[in-house]
């Protein structure tokens, strides 16, 4: 059902937790729908230096959260904004069609965290 890589990110998720003094926080999803993600980022000189997540959801939702934090770290804000649901799914060696909304959730949470960072820091 799931790729080896996805199962690895589900069973050994990277970057689980909160960043207490995060520069941006993005929340996406809703528990009534079965998945919700909270993504925290630290930004220094326009580069995402740290990212962590908390996720309520299925195996795919947790793996997407883990992968997207890995992908975002070290990227500039502009590069991070280029991460899409397709690129996350591809990085996990593909996802079952009925689970693609989980990768959308990850990309949306990241974009919301960046929006939050920009709002707080008065950026464009």
């Amino acid at each position: 059902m799931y790729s080896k890589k996805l199962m690895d990110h589900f069973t050994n998720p990277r970057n689980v937790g909160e960043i207490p003094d995060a520069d941006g926080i993005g929340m996406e999803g809703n528990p009534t729908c079965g998945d919700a993600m909270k993504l925290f980022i630290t930004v220094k000189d326009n580069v995402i230096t740290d990212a962590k997540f908390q996720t309520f959801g299925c195996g795919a939702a947790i793996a997407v959260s883990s992968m997207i934090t890995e992908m975002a770290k070290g990227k500039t804000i502009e590069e991070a904004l280029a991460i899409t649901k397709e690129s996350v799914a591809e990085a996990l060696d593909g996802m079952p069609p009925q689970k693609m909304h989980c990768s959308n959730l990850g990309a949306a949470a990241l974009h919301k965290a960046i929006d939050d960072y920009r709002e707080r820091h008065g950026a464009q």
Partner: protein
Amino acid sequence: MKIRYFDHAATNPLHPEALDAMMPYLKNEYGNPLGIYDLGQNARDAVEQARQETALLVNAKPAEIIFTASGAEANNFALKGLAMARQNDGKHLIVSRAEHHSITNTARSLEKLGWVVTFLPLDKYGTVDPQAVKNAINKETTVISVIHASSEIGTIEPIKEIARIAGERGVAFHTDAVSTTGNIPVDVKELEVDALSMSAHQFYGPKGAGALYLKQGSRILPLIYGGIQEGGRRAGTENVPAIVGMGKAAALAVREMDARAAHVKKLRDRLIDGLTKIDKVHLTGHPVNRLPGHASFVVEYIEGEGMLLMLAAKGVYAASGSACTSKALKSSPVLLSMGVSSSMSHGSIVLSLGMDNTDEDADVVLAELSAIINRLREMSPFAKSGWGELKEGE
């Protein structure tokens, strides 16, 4: 890794004695039961013996047993066949919210053909109120179908009371007894039902064999037309090996039922005691009136599929009614009807026991599941703050 199987509601291993009984009919005894020569008559005799054994399991007459290919077929046959045979009397059906898809989707298909269907609500334990059945009956009502016990929540429904109400009003009554037949006493005379579905693999028989009990004299239209098999009510050459296996499994169930039920009930109660001690883990279904081998829960703040995948990695195979484990991605209608919130319904987990489970299995699942719940809650944004946050939209 040792496999610990806690998904007996999905299916069961084939009983070795049932397999032995089947083997000749997979090899040399390949005759068609309609053949007038010995090879055919041997197959005919085997099918009729299995019919007697199956009838005995539910206290029916052999002529009241119609073999099908599955419990789902028996359910389709019952609801469609009883409704269509009575379509000149009315087009109103009553089913409950606890039904299996093979009843709810059949009811929906009949809705498209002009029938009106009432779906009866469940109380917080998943029980159907017989009074609600009585109130739902009108002049057009021809068939009522209520499940004997749901394999999702384990609750045993008050079938006898509901069947009596249906009988008093002259309405045909069917029960889906797939999860109960062979596991707890099922007696069609005592329950006073007109029709009852069962499935062999739910009591250690083979897959591909089921049956509908149909009370003598009850009108039904066939689902499958063709030859004269099963008294003309279900055409198609009989699946002789599977039917023989079902008969043997039925005979074994009659003999071993009490011991099996006592064994799984002891383990079930240990699982319920252990898991409900964990904060925000709730038993679903009735605490007492439930299947002896069925323990089901909702675990707050986490989602069922994650629990199943982590359990599977430890060799523990279980089930969930969670939306994410279904391709439809919809919350369980059974849990929602019981008043479980949509958020909580995603944390459903079902542990169903069988005679192969041991005390050690129960110890392992208790320890592993507790650890997995902690681990997934550490990842959840709701575990510390509760459902309050992010809850807009509910």
